[in-house]
């Protein structure tokens, strides 16, 4: 703050002396109106409204969520994708790995609605079977990022001081290397290059993706750590750490959940991008990214081979991002204020 130009006492000296403050009377006649009691019955002061069932914030959010079309659509899609990932046999009865070069780049025919890849594999069933790998990368990366980034962010935000300084700088360091770039460098390391699998991709993405969640968590924790209910808990004898776990974190979850949902989508895209660049999942694993990359040379004469897995990817990612949007509206703190 800049220095005060005027001493504060000048701003509190009364302008009208106390003796003169006897209230005002008007020279005009003013009617004294009293409303009849029947029109304005008095209620008891401050009684509890017993009319509805108890409603926690989560229940309230759920109610809000159920009414949003964005949520309904995304929920249906996500459930569909999950089922496909777990039980691909239900959706495709052609073996995706049985490829014959005779069928190379053949168009759609009976039983094979989307045609064939360059290798002669059925596009449709590869798309179905590829769901699992892509989804696994998305889900496990998000879990990893939530755990690692969440812990770092929570500790930084709660304890502040040099803990915060160090963790924030650490986050900045990883932030400085863009996700794809860092992932590329990482996947080039012999240890990773020779062991490409879902888990190495997940690890790579977690290593470069945790700062974002850490930042959100840190912000939410900082907002909540000085709340009166936290101070009250400490005054009851709760240790500082327990106050973080039991009171601060549950109240910080809302923005984290929103970002996690959207991040899940972007991690699936990231895996596809890495596979497209040739350093993602190995060719032995069926994934949308791999299929899109493999379909590159054919894109001019047989675009479907690229576009179908791309569409599946996009729809999946879209549903997670829509879910994130719907959650953000439902958990909006401004709607909570009473």
């Amino acid at each position, binding site marked *: 703050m800049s220095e005060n130009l005027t001493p504060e006492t000048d701003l509190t000296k009364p302008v009208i002396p106390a003796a003169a403050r006897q209230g005002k009377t008007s020279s005009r006649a003013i009617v004294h109106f009293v409303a009849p009691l029947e029109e304005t019955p008095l209620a008891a002061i401050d009684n509890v409204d017993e009319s509805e069932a108890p409603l926690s914030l989560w229940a309230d959010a759920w109610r809000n969520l159920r009414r949003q079309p964005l949520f309904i659509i995304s929920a249906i899609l996500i459930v569909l994708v999950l089922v496909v990932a777990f039980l691909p046999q239900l959706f495709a009865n052609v073996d995706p790995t049985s490829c014959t070069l005779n069928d190379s780049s053949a168009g759609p025919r009976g039983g094979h609605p989307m045609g064939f890849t360059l290798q002669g594999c059925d596009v449709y069933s590869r798309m179905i079977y590829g769901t699992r790998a892509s989804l696994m990368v998305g889900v496990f990366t998000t879990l990893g990022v939530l755990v690692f980034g969440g812990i770092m962010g929570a500790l930084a935000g709660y304890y502040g001081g040099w803990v915060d300084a160090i963790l924030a700088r650490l986050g900045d360091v*990883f932030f*400085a290397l863009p996700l794809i*770039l860092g992932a590329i460098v990482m996947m080039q*390391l012999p240890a990773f290059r020779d062991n490409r699998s879902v888990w190495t991709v997940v690890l790579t993405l977690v290593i470069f993706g945790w700062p974002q969640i850490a930042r959100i968590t840190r912000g939410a924790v900082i907002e909540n750590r000085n709340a009166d209910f936290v101070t009250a808990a400490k005054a009851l004898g709760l240790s500082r750490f327990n106050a973080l776990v039991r009171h601060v974190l549950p109240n910080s979850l809302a923005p984290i959940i929103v970002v996690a949902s959207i991040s899940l989508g972007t991690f699936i895209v990231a895996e596809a991008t890495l596979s497209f660049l040739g350093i993602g999942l190995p060719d032995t694993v069926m994934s949308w990214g791999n299929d899109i990359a493999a379909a590159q040379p054919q894109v001019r004469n047989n675009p479907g081979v*690229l576009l179908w897995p791309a569409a599946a990817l*996009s729809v999946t990612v879209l549903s997670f991002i829509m879910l994130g949007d719907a959650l953000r509206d439902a958990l909006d703190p401004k709607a909570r204020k009473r």
Partner: protein
Amino acid sequence: MVMFTLRRFLQLIPVFFGATLLVYFLVFATPGDPIAALSGGKPMAPAVQAALRAQYNLDQPFWIQYGLYLKNLVTLNLGQTFSGQDVSAVIGRAYPVTARLAFMALAIEAIFGVLFGVIAGLRKGKLFDATVLVASLVVIAVPTFVLGFVLQLVIGVQLGWARPTVSGAAPWNELILPALVLGLVSLAYVIRLTRASISENMNADYVRTATAKGLSRGRVVVVHILRNSLIPVVTFLGADLGSLMGGAIVTEGIFNVPGVGNLLYKAILKGESATVVAVVGILVIVFVVANLVVDLLYAWLDPRIRYV
């Protein structure tokens, strides 16, 4: 203000060291023969190996290696590529292309992003808003390379409105399509951010006071709502420029733009670690500078920050 700048600068120094250290460590110090990493796993003549060892000071302890690397970085003594070219010269050719691409992408996302975001925010819940929202979701969901392919196919090949790939000289007009693809995802984020910021500020108390003063609606929107809403948007754009300058690996790959991203990608695949650490080192410097500029910009736009 000066103090603020100084403090932010001091905070970014460890970031610079940390990021370059991380990359250098990943490339050179991981288990395994660094020469193998340098050669990409291909066999090399002993003489070449010895020369490489000398060049990269691989006989020295790691910290000295790192220190020498930093020294070389700031003096732009960046070594040579496998094909014998000076790394600094190669980067010098590639960076202006990336810079052109980055600024075009930024222009697209700034102009259209803010425009659509403002309209959507002011007319929240109406048709334009809903359309824009859905469109932005779709753009974020579809991977950049798919968008790139599709647009290349449709606009470049089928409609023939633009060259499908970019020539070596990479003039401005050829970069329009890649810039569009590059900027599309950020465009979606800018729209969403602007929209959210506007709808939040529209209901602020000071907007009501401004209206109570007798200001016309237009003036309230521009001088009060817009001015305040654009603060987070401008800082996002600034940060985005930093990452755009980092080279858009995917987009440059699809359209064959001879920029930094393409250079980096090929170097990584070939195992040219010299190029990799040099380019990444410069990227980190650019990132740090961009961050500093963004922070200063934020402080200029929001007077409350200046004294923090």
